[in-house]
């Protein structure tokens, strides 16, 4: 069935929700004739039922974790507990500028979460302000930058080292922070080439950004040697928390030698992804970096809690107000319900699920370029001659969301699979069967897939060459 745009359902004069009655008003007098817009924005004019059917219908053309298995590598698409939504509703009507003595519950929650996250990461202070993972990266790198600047080394340290397997956000962040990015190659074992890294290190290096486990799902075994080498030349160790789910509570970045860590609360700590956000990207640091964290921090003051703006060395603010509080509530609930044991067990089972699925994939003829005990995810390749994009589209036809495709860049035809700990063994087995099935159906079938989704393969080239980015009223 067709899915018209809401604008195409619009009928002039039709009304949805009506606000309270508005008295007669002379807006010209109040706002100035020269400031008034001559015509209203062409928003859709629909009744409430049409609105409801429109968005309900759109949701039925959409899948999410609640619908099916969604093993996107590096995205940690685990179950988002429903209790989160009940929890966050209790804190909806708080304004960031209300008197702090009237928001003590919210501040206490943030204070406790700061402590919990520091504990889980092995850090000594945490800011909750960044709005997402990449935003946390920026915050973390700026914190490092401020640290170097405070020691008079800013002009000297202009390079950030990033492995070639890193998430794209790492080099992008380093660029945003004004750094030159230097890529470090991976060794044949998929880990950072320690010798290459050593060669690249020097007094010009501000930081190394690492994901551990890395995007191949492999734990960097030489992490301590890396940290030592970095620290020996005064560089800071940055931990990209995107893959923390593998080791949350099991091994702490702080104990590995990292100085800074950002977390993706919407990955590891089960905040719903919401179709791409909002997320939350707290940043934890060791004590020597604490003075540079953004302002304000939540602090204990007497019996209560307060916002501390007195942070003279702070990098400043990275977002208005105090962070994505709604996401913080959800992460807090998650941590407090799981406790230490639940957190560690969840990480271990994420690893178990990934390894189990990796074994099943091998049985289906998929190739595993780095076939070791993996962490929370692994990278596979389709059987010889098959294209990853086709495998992905075939999976859609069988009702599964495909893994991340063509990433990391260092593996050809990569399928990056992260099942997460909340999936059942039966689901993993059914998924492996489906991966076998799409191959058995053959290339011709695969190249045409998907067949019964709301749309079939879309023309991306056309969209890139001649993007159509908004609806236009007909006749324009």
């Amino acid at each position, binding site marked *: 069935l067709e*899915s018209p745009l809401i604008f195409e359902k619009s009928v002039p004069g039709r009304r949805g929700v009506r*606000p309270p009655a508005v008295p007669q008003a002379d807006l010209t007098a*109040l*706002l100035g004739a*020269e400031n*008034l*817009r*001559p015509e209203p*924005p062409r*928003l859709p*004019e629909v009744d409430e039922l049409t609105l409801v059917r429109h968005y*309900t219908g759109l*949701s039925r053309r*959409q*899948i999410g974790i609640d619908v099916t298995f969604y093993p996107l590598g590096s995205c940690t698409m685990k179950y988002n507990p429903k209790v989160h*939504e009940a*929890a966050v509703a209790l804190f*909806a*009507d*708080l304004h*960031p*500028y*209300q*008197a702090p*003595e*009237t928001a003590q519950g*919210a501040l206490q929650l943030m204070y406790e979460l700061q402590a919990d996250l520091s504990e889980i990461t092995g850090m000594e202070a945490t800011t909750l302000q960044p709005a997402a993972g990449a*935003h946390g990266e920026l915050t973390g790198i700026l914190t490092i930058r401020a640290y170097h600047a405070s020691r008079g080394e800013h002009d000297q340290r202009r390079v950030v080292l990033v492995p070639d397997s890193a*998430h*794209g*956000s790492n*080099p992008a962040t380093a660029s945003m922070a*004004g750094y030159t990015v230097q890529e470090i190659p991976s060794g044949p074992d998929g880990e950072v080439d320690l010798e290459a890294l050593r060669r690249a290190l020097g007094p010009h290096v501000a930081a190394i950004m690492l994901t551990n486990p890395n995007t191949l799902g492999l734990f960097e075994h030489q992490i301590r040697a890396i940290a030592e080498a970095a620290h020996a030349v005064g560089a800071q160790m940055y931990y990209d928390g995107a893959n923390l789910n593998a080791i949350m*509570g099991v*091994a702490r970045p702080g104990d*590995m030698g990292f100085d800074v860590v950002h977390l993706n609360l919407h990955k590891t700590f089960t905040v719903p*992804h919401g*179709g*791409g*956000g*909002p997320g939350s990207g707290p940043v934890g640091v060791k004590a020597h970096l604490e003075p540079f964290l953004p302002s304000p921090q939540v602090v204990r003051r007497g019996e209560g809690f307060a916002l501390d703006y007195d942070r003279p060395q702070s990098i*400043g*603010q990275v977002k*208005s*107000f105090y962070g*994505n509080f709604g996401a913080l*509530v959800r992460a807090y609930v998650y941590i407090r*319900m799981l406790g230490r044991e*639940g*957190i560690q067990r*969840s990480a271990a089972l994420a690893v178990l699920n990934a390894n189990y699925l990796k074994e099943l994939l091998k049985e289906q003829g998929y190739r595993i370029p780095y076939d070791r*005990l993996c962490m929370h995810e692994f990278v596979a390749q389709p059987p010889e001659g098959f294209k990853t994009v086709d495998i992905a589209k075939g999976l859609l036809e069988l009702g599964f969301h495909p893994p991340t495709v063509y990433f990391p860049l260092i593996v050809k035809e990569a399928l990056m699979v992260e099942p997460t700990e909340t999936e059942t063994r039966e689901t993993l087995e059914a998924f492996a069967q489906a991966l076998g099935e799409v191959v058995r159906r053959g290339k011709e079938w695969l190249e045409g897939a998907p067949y019964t989704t*709301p*749309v079939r*393969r*879309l023309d991306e080239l056309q*969209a890139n060459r001649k*993007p159509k*980015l908004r*609806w236009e009223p007909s006749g324009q």
Partner: protein
Amino acid sequence: MDYTPHTPQDLEAMLAKVGAEDLPDLFRELPQDLLFPPLNLPAPLSEAEMMRKLHELAAKNHSAAGSFLGGGLRAHYIPAAVGPLATRAEFLSAYTPYQPEASQGLLQAIFEYQTMISELTGLPVSNASLYDGSTAVAEGVLLALRETGRSQVLISQGVHPEYRKVLKTYLDAIGAELETLPLQSGKTPPAMIGPEVGAVVGANPNFLGTVENLAPLAEAAHAAGALFVAVVDALSLALLKPPGSYGADIAVGEGQPLGNAMAFGGPQFGFMAVRENLVRQLPGRLVSETTDADGKRGYILTLQAREQYIRRGKAKSNITTNAQLTALMGAVYLGALGPQGFREVATRSVLNAHDLAQRLRAIPGVRQLTPEPYFCEFVLELPKPPVEVRSRLAERGLHAAVPVPEEYGQNLALFAATEVHTEEDLAALEAALREVLA
């Protein structure tokens, strides 16, 4: 409790298959002294116990639902349909729509959102959202600097002070310079714009609530070869000229007034719309219409070469996760109200604010700092410290009087009114403020 489904039988079979003896053995290749640190966390709670603790925490907060607080976020009414529709499980639990065949619902919704933002701002291209108003300003300025290849920024003091702080953090990072143009009598004065200025930024209404005519500033920017960035209140666009019509190259702002809870400051969403020729400089996601293998209309992420996961160090921004769900709330909100309802919300907010200002400035010792014309927020000079006034009002169950940073003057407090307020509410605040100031 955790959310893992593994039974003892599952564990046994799966561990055997992967060749591990037990769960800790899965980590056998890691440095062993790292493993299983004794985390200092409270004992786990059941869902029922957790909800009870949250109710206890929530009871330590006062609701700001009917408040007169402003400064970036306000207490508007959110139609009951918005939440249930935008948080349908499929939207809530989806990732970024990388597989468009399984994500047409979200992609179409974003395409519609882009259209709505384009309509509000009078600019042809909107992205799919940014984190919030403050980071939208920063991203807008960075865009202008990329486009112009310059490294100086001139910003009106009328832009929200927190937004300016965030911008400063972003500009410091790349070594760009930020100069502030102080308000004069509450408005942005004419400016001299140097040849190295790549971005000029003004706000409308400004932080004091005043509606400014930013056309001269935009013209001056263009004359100097800079781009003009307008920071606009989303609600004001129901009534005020769209920034595209007075020369803005880039319009950005905070989306919370469009159907999002205040949520103690987040999440909201930031919006950004630009002139056509800036599209390839735009940060963040973009959805385009296209056709599928059968020629059927469909929607897809486009121009991804701008983004970090393709372009890495050369990306236009590091943004990945944005604010899709809260932006969707904004779209549902605008769809629910339509142009007429949206206009009515704005009008009633303006009328209430003017009524309130009239009442409050009649209180002895109170002076209005915000000049005419103003929208739905305004700043008063109070005869007592605003922090104290805010607390005394809160004791009376009224939330108002946001303390204004001293850069704008002494003893200033910001007030906002919205469509949720009745005349009785305005009278109640007036009476309470009289008491507090007496």
